């Protein structure tokens, strides 16, 4: 479905806001995610920039009404460039007491609470751990409360729909959506169309949801609203012309890998073993057979890595994917790929650890694992993606480097990036620079560890090629013949060349740029991965107040851009903000002997802009 923008000027009595954060929360069965997705879609059509994040419970389907069963969806949208999903919601839509219980603490002081009072029964209050009813006991006095019996009003609206009470009640999310549409002046037509399409086999449900949506909207138009609750307008953002879609990180990686394989002119072989939050990449690629993607669910992570290595050996680009504990299991196999110098891509969707940790929560704590986490001097390329859309480019870069240098590449994302979404201008595939792989075919002078003198990459000779039959393996090989060798000088030479090959990639990657701010000043805030949004906004905010701060964001984690030492030297202080106990800070200190300071956060939640701003300001005051 491709729709042109139809931006209707808003009624003039609406208050204008630059940006707003809305959070929907309820039971897993309340349709919170669908509601969020529809709101996102119409908001995009309204011309706002936006970012979204679904926040699933750890449990598959916890008992209804429990706090640990709360599912949430957050959107930040505005008239300006949106870089994060927002520190704190302005508006919370709570479908039940548990949702209010869990989410209230993150709501902005004075924020709007829209609560379905129909669900605040004694039993539900108890399940959520409320003593008294917060809607009536005055405990929400510091918020702008809009308690509506959404359940009852939905039932009322659907009295004639012919639906059972149970079915009718399941439309209440659209009633709430209608109310929120009214609040922000959103157009209902795209949702009407979506509902018609979605329920084309159950038109009664389509009609009912539409009716609920309209009823909620009408309620906003006509009801007497509580003090302080009003209607807003968020003017459209300045957005580059083009055709857009929403994209999550995992989709962008899937597309990027598929695109990269096409640019390399190779089939893509993806093998993985399910693990949260990495599985969605497997799911996405499993639907991409048309693009030349073969997926394989292996018996475990070790087998997944090994099958990918086997596929690379046979002439595909082998990719595997997991999260920290699963990547740990792939370590030995990655060593084999380093020793045999075969291309391999390992995507790590990082999650909170150690061990099982908090699988559904985000963290950036596998950088050490990626850069250093193998036995022996086993260097690989490490890349990181800084936003959902960025994943596309980084995945292409991973394919380029893996195939050009015959090396494993570890691509780091995290649970946040993988599931967050943002608008994305559709890339022009034909405009991407191809990097076709040239397999070795000439038998003259061939041996399997022949190297390209520039890249130091060994030749890629694929089974099936006549005259190039050869044996490779994890035992050390002679530099000059590829045969097994235990010769001391040879091991030194091979170790040196393996390390030099990876180090040399620094000459084939972009120079490090300063993302915002001047190239010198008091503080450089250095980040990598999903901290991009909050750092970027925080630095902008401080700069707006005159602080001499810059933002430097790394994509190439290993090897690092060759000018990075010089770039960092431009600042009095280096502050590394990351969601771990200081891993990038450690690496920068070791590489460049800069006294990098660490701003660390390890609670499973992305940084808030305010936290980074505060840290910068503290440092500025020193």
């Amino acid at each position, binding site marked *: *479905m*491709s*729709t*042109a*923008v139809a931006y209707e000027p808003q009624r003039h009595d609406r208050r204008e806001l630059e940006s707003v954060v809305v959070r929907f929360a309820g039971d897993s069965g309340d349709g919170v995610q669908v509601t969020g997705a529809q709101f996102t*879609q119409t908001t995009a*059509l309204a*011309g706002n920039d936006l970012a979204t994040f679904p926040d699933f419970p750890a449990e598959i389907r916890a008992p209804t009404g429990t706090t640990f069963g709360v599912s949430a969806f957050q959107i930040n949208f505005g008239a300006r460039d949106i870089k994060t999903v927002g520190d704190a919601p302005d508006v919370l839509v709570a479908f039940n007491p548990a949702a209010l219980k869990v989410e209230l603490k993150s709501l902005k002081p004075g924020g709007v609470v829209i609560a379905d009072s129909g669900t605040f029964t004694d039993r539900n209050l108890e399940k959520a751990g409320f003593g008294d009813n917060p809607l009536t006991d005055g405990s929400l006095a510091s918020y702008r409360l809009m308690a509506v019996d959404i359940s009852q009003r939905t039932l009322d609206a659907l009295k004639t729909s012919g639906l059972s009470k149970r079915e009718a009640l399941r439309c209440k999310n659209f009633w709430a959506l209608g109310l929120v549409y009214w609040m922000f002046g959103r157009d209902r037509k795209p949702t009407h169309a*979506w509902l018609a399409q979605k329920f084309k086999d159950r038109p009664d449900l389509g009609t009912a949801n539409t009716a609920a949506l309209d009823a909620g909207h009408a309620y906003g138009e006509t009801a007497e609203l509580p003090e302080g609750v009003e209607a807003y307008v968020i003017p459209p953002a300045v*957005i*580059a*012309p*083009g*055709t*857009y*879609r*929403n994209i999550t990180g995992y989709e962008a990686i899937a*597309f990027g890998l*598929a*695109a990269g394989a*096409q640019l390399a002119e190779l089939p893509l*072989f993806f*093998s993985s073993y399910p693990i949260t939050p990495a599985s969605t990449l497997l799911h996405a690629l499993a639907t991409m*057979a*048309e*693009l*030349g993607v*073969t997926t*394989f669910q*292996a*018996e475990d992570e*070790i*087998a*997944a890595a*090994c099958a*990918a*290595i*086997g*596929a*690379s*050996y*046979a002439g*595909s680009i*082998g990719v595997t994917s997991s999260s920290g504990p699963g990547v740990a299991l792939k370590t*030995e196999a990655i060593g*084999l790929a380093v020793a045999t110098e075969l291309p391999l891509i390992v995507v790590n969707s990082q999650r909170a650890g150690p061990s099982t940790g908090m699988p559904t929560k985000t963290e950036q704590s596998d950088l050490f694992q990626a850069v250093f986490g193998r036995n022996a001097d086993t260097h690989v390329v490490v890349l990181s993606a800084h936003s959902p859309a960025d994943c596309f480019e980084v995945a292409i870069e991973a394919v380029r480097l893996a195939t050009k240098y015959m090396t494993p590449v570890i691509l780091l994302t995290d649970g946040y990036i993988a599931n967050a979404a943002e608008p994305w201008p*559709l*890339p022009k*595939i*034909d405009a991407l620079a191809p990097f076709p792989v040239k397999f070795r075919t000439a038998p003259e002078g061939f041996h399997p560890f022949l190297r390209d003198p520039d890249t130091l990459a060994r030749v890629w000779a694929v*089974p*099936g090629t*006549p005259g*190039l*039959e*050869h*044996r490779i*393996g994890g*035992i050390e090989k002679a530099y000059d013949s590829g045969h*097994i060798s235990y010769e001391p000088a040879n091991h030194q030479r091979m170790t040196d060349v393996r390390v030099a090959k990876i180090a040399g990639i620094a000459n084939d990657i972009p120079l490090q740029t300063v993302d915002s701010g001047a190239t010198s000043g008091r503080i450089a805030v250095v980040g990598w991965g999903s901290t991009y949004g909050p750092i970027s906004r925080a630095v902008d905010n401080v700069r707006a107040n005159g602080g001499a701060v810059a933002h430097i964001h790394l994509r190439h984690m290993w090897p690092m851009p060759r000018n990075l030492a010089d770039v960092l030297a431009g600042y009095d202080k280096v502050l590394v903000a990351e969601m771990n106990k200081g891993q990038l800070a450690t690496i920068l200190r070791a590489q460049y002997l800069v006294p990098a300071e660490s701003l660390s956060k390890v609670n499973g939640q992305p940084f808030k802009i305010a936290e980074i701003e505060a840290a910068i300001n503290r440092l500025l005051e020193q």
Partner: protein
Amino acid sequence: MNAPIKLTPKDFATDQEVRWCPGCGDYAILKSVLGVLPDFGVPREKTVFVSGIGCASRFPYYVSTYGFHTIHGRAPAIATGIKLANPELDVWLVTGDGDGLSIGGNHLLHVLRRNVNMQILLFNNEIYGLTKGQYSPTSRPGTRSPSTPFGSFDPPVIAAAFALGAGARFVARSIDTLQKHLPIVLKRAHDHVGASFVEIFQNCIVYNDAVFDDFAAKDVAAERQIHLEHGKPLLFAGGRKGLRVKPGSLALEVVHVGEGGVGVGEVLVHDETNRILATMLATMEGAEFPVALGVLYCNPAASSYDAEVDKRIRKRVSPDRRAALTRMLARGATWTVR
């Protein structure tokens, strides 16, 4: 193109010095394999030998095809990747009792279950050769080794029974020294479409010498080996003895055939398509029973996993991948900013 030249075993040998201990059973197996490779008419470049780690796993270095000496226990997974990426390759997997049944047991289970089309040769010497003689999961109880100085006491796994339990559709056995028998078994394995599992009893002259002598030694071979042939009665000891189902039970027994014994008609006829019979033959225990050699089970499935991947996934690839990508990117909700 020229007509394919018929290759010889020599063509499949490499110039690498073979680095097994003098007298190791691996030499004999290498000889058998090199002997049969020319018969398949598969060119060297389409043949890949994949192995794990162990003495057995050095095999690929001695075959002049493509070869991948991988890591301990993981060869089945790597071979699966190779075969799924290019089903046209003829893949042989060489493993040991430690490589395949200790660290690699899970991958062996799954390659057999999935029925990926390849030949799997497990050299069982009932010991860890390369790491200097520790006991393995196939070692007999009481094995004294550096890691079991008081003797081992865990029941060994029966490789063929494990393979059958895992769902293998081709299970066979031979002995390193059976230079007539082994090539036939190898050919049968190659003919079978799907995962073919061949256990080869292999003498480790250094750490477990003569451990198979109770049935592999020349002088006891007739009494202690039964060479299976599909459709033929299960006779051994020069036809003097046979196997039958003990009446009124579900167990095999050894019977004397002919004078003073039962008639040949009462002896079981080997049916290699019967998994239960194969299981019985694989698990015969005790000195009165022979060791079953040859094809215990061969019951090919309609297709192999790699063929299905090819048909159901790879065949979907669009003739214009680039256009398909552009199309797929624009699928779902999009909007245009002007």
